[in-house]
């Protein structure tokens, strides 16, 4: 139940990829027929990705993943906006966006980080007020990877359009879970990552609306119309294309299934475990995201005890090797100290069943009981 971290590759996707390792192994840039076959496979994948989000094939740039897509979107726009050195984003973006922004800050750009409310919804009024004459780009994620909150992208993209500012959204978590259509959302750029939707790792795409001028961030043999150099990861891209096709086909079924599991998991946890809260927006949330905090139980400890029971989850409260701090997302939601150290993200996938939910609830009960018995706080 850690599908927001990554997903298993669908067997249909693996099947689609396999021929491209040793049979059709050509370099898509080669002129001979081995190369042509590879190039045709890329074209098909480009169409599959484009179709799934209502875009044109030529608007898709393949990258090495969601992180690179985010980097390309934000850094790609900057050189085309001489003098426009201001960027607007939110405080709860993925590090791929936040650290790209801090890099640009180190180069002299200015960044406004718009706050969110306690449910994780961006403050659109503050966003609009922070627009300046020299704002080059607004980047706000479609759905948050930790708490699953879905942002009012249409509203924000409308504001961006009004002010003639490029708008990018990181849709890495939303694709395959809720409808993602570039025209409905009104975005100029949109990031996707293959491994979040049952495709292989190390592949992704940036959608770039026709007419949006960006410059590359990796230089070389001018692959991807010069926007992303480097021999194309043919098998990976083929798998990604297939995964996007499947995601689009299965979206309505998947989202009903996941929503049902999500709601059942949330209500059963509330019913059976005390001192618990739901993090993120109660309804404007991804169908596959459950993020809850438990008093008197610490995130990493819960995660590890659950892991021993065969349940994989993640926590924004990790006393990780890198920092003792709770995640920037939980902090931005102003979650109380008693709850912030005990958060768990349980993210569902297509292949989960109600049995998994049962097992999850049981394992969680056992885990919480055990940790609370150990906690000096529980009986105060």
């Amino acid at each position, binding site marked *: 139940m850690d599908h927001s971290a990554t997903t298993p590759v669908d067997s249909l996707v693996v099947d689609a990829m396999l021929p491209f390792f040793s049979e059709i192994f050509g370099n898509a840039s080669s002129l001979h027929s081995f190369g042509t076959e590879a190039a045709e496979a890329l074209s098909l994948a480009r169409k599959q990705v484009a179709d799934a989000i209502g875009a044109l094939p030529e608007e898709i740039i393949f990258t090495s993943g969601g992180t690179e897509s985010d980097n390309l979107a934000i850094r790609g726009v900057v050189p085309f906006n001489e003098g426009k050195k201001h960027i607007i984003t939110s405080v709860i973006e993925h590090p791929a966006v936040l650290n790209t922004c801090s890099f640009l800050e180190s180069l002299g750009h200015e960044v406004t980080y718009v706050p969110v409310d306690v449910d994780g919804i961006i403050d659109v009024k503050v966003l609009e007020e922070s627009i300046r004459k020299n704002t080059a780009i607004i980047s706000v994620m479609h759905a948050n990877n930790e708490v699953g909150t879905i942002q009012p992208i249409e509203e924000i993209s409308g504001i961006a359009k009004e002010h003639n500012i490029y708008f990018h959204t990181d849709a890495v978590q939303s694709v395959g879970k809720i409808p993602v259509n570039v025209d409905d959302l009104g975005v100029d750029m949109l990031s996707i990552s293959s491994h979040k939707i049952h495709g292989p790792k190390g592949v992704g795409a940036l959608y770039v609306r026709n007419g949006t001028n960006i410059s590359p961030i990796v230089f070389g043999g001018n692959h991807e119309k010069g926007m992303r150099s480097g021999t194309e990861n043919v098998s990976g891209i083929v798998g990604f294309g297939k995964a996007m096709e499947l995601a689009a086909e299965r979206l309505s079924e998947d989202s009903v299934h996941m929503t049902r599991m999500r709601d059942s998991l949330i209500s059963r946890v509330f019913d059976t475990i005390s001192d618990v809260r739901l993090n993120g927006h109660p309804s404007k949330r991804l169908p596959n995201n459950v993020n809850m905090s438990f008093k008197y139980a610490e995130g990493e400890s819960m995660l*590890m005890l659950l892991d021993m029971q065969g349940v994989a989850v993640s926590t924004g409260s990790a006393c990780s090797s890198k920092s003792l701090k709770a995640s920037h997302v939980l902090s931005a939601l102003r979650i109380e100290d008693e709850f912030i*150290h005990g958060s768990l993200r349980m993210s569902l996938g297509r292949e989960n069943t109600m049995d998994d939910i049962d097992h999850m609830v049981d394992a969680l009960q056992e885990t919480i009981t055990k940790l609370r018995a150990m906690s*000096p706080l529980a009986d105060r």
Partner: protein
Amino acid sequence: MYSKKVMEEFSNPANVGVVEDADGVGEVGSTIDGDIINISIKVKDNILEDVKFKTFGCVVAISTSSAVVKLAKGKTVDEAMALTNEDVISYLDGLPEGKDRCSGFALDALKMAINDYIHKNK
């Protein structure tokens, strides 16, 4: 990433609780930090006859608590005071890099408890 021993102490910690009529109590941490370790001791004839812990915290916080308590139990007050962080870490077959910060808390709590005992019995 954690040693087998760490996972053992973490998942099957012994001596959880609070010693009744404790002779000394030590507590380290706060909810803000996300780690609280409480160690209580019973001392008889200068020997730590009983030692217990209650810990809210991560895997390292819990496993070091359990380790510290086991190491201290049965030792004399002086022996227990002489325990080092290295003793704890080696008892646990090592800790991952970067986890050193948490690793000292349990020992701090033990020494606080012993100092509390010494102070009370001066």
